[in-house]
């Protein structure tokens, strides 16, 4: 079993850290994991993306042509990665700021209203966890328990008090994701 995932959006949306938590969750389940980010000044304000691969077998290339799941958080990323989803694969997007919605018919497309929800629920910083929750609902690659353990591992101890909020956000994401 192997899942090849791309997460893409603006810098500051927690794209890289969402990928990191996913990777740590995979580590908790003894999977092979690879996390390969875009890096450089584009992280701040520009688009950022990260490839996360979780697999039961050794991972070859960190660089991929196509993905099982694409999580898209802004328009430039949608333009770039919609075409890179494998036939029959999953595209998840938050339509906040999206002008041209995805159009492909040979993949499953889901919408998650994460930005608005994060603001209305009062945990803006856990926005990316809402999105992660949505993805886990569709494709439970890792268990919620592993995610929470991964989160604990990837967060510095001083931030551990934020764990309950993050869990709440993940559960919320599972609740609000919907197929378009």
């Amino acid at each position, binding site marked *: 079993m192997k899942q090849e995932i791309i997460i893409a959006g603006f810098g500051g949306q927690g794209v890289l850290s969402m990928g990191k938590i996913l990777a740590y969750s995979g580590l908790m389940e003894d999977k092979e994991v690879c*996390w390969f*980010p875009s*890096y450089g000044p584009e992280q701040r304000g520009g688009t950022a993306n990260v490839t996360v691969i979780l697999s039961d077998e050794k991972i070859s290339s*960190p*660089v*991929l*042509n196509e993905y099982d799941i694409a999580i898209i958080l802004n328009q430039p990323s949608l333009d770039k990665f919609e075409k890179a989803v494998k036939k029959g694969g999953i595209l998840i997007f938050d339509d906040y700021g999206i002008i041209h919605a995805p159009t492909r018919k040979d993949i499953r497309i889901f919408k998650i209203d994460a930005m608005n929800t994060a603001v209305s629920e009062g945990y803006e910083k856990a926005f990316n966890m809402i999105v992660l929750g949505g993805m886990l609902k569709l494709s439970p690659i890792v268990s919620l328990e592993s995610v929470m353990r991964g989160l604990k591992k990837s967060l510095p101890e001083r931030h551990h008090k934020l764990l309950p909020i993050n869990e709440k956000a993940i559960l919320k994401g599972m609740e609000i994701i919907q197929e378009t």
Partner: protein
Amino acid sequence: MVEEVKLMKGNEAIAHAAIRYGADGYFGYPITPQSEIMETLMEEAPWETTGMVVLQAESEVAAINMVYGGAACGKRVMTSSSSPGISLKQEGISYMAGAELPALIVNVMRGGPGLGTIQPSQADYFQTVKGGGHGDYRLITLAPASVQEMADHVALGFDLAFKYNNPAMILADGVIGQMMEKVILPDFRPRKTEAEIRAEQPWATLGKPKGRKPNIITSLELDSHIMERNNLRFQEKYRKIEANEVLYEELLCADADYLIVAFGSAARICQKTVELARAEGIKVGLFRPITLWPFPSVALKKYAEKIKGILTVELNAGQMVEDIKLSVECKVPVHFFGRLGGIVPTPDEALKALKAML
């Protein structure tokens, strides 16, 4: 001891492995995409535990010369940088080769020339294996293709450097430096004591006990006859390294009609290309040089008799391909595919190039 599996970036693995190896010092200057090496070292503060010195220098030039000074004391010292910074370090590297000093240098390559790009590249192959600085010398060059190898090559690089009193380089790139994978870090080893260094590196400048001649570390020799003898001694050493220290990895090469030859991140990408090609019935294998100098020429030459063609994949305009052609002596066609400017080719791009040569 139970081995703990950790998840970290290649750059971070280098830092942790250096502390655990018992390195005495790291001297560096920040540059993307390798700054996590010094950041991790500063965060770990090994001067409080193992006694390792970590210092941010005023420039890459100063950093490599600090490495020279530390190495001349017989200490396990290292530096790291990325392409433009490595160009600045060439002076010190040449002097260390000339003074026969062991040290570890890490280059997490980005695209050039000039400031170029901060994105991954393998365009410093020539610079690394053909010289880089001035004078006839060689640099032991290791090309890790995983985060685990980033960690493992720290010990390997130091060990080879000290075995031959010669600088060694880990030649990685932005992909290997920035990606996170599982890694098992080596066990902690104690740093060498001064008494051990005095015994194992009798040439070290640690202060002259009464009765011993002064130790003088220099690359200077104005008498041409003596200098030629020095040069010949270096060359003899290089031939010994070429005979004994070649490392490479073969993946599905035994029954292959074609070989892809690639190193570092390009080799990782081409592993997938091989998977894809095999699924289509193309009998292709991956040959991955781990030491770029010494280059695995003998092993490659053996394949030249058995296969129909070689595809070299590099993140540059075609550099290692020259060494491959020299190795196979025109016995088999050698093709090249590469991307430039910091673009990392995808596995299917390489597959397309492979199919084009069938």
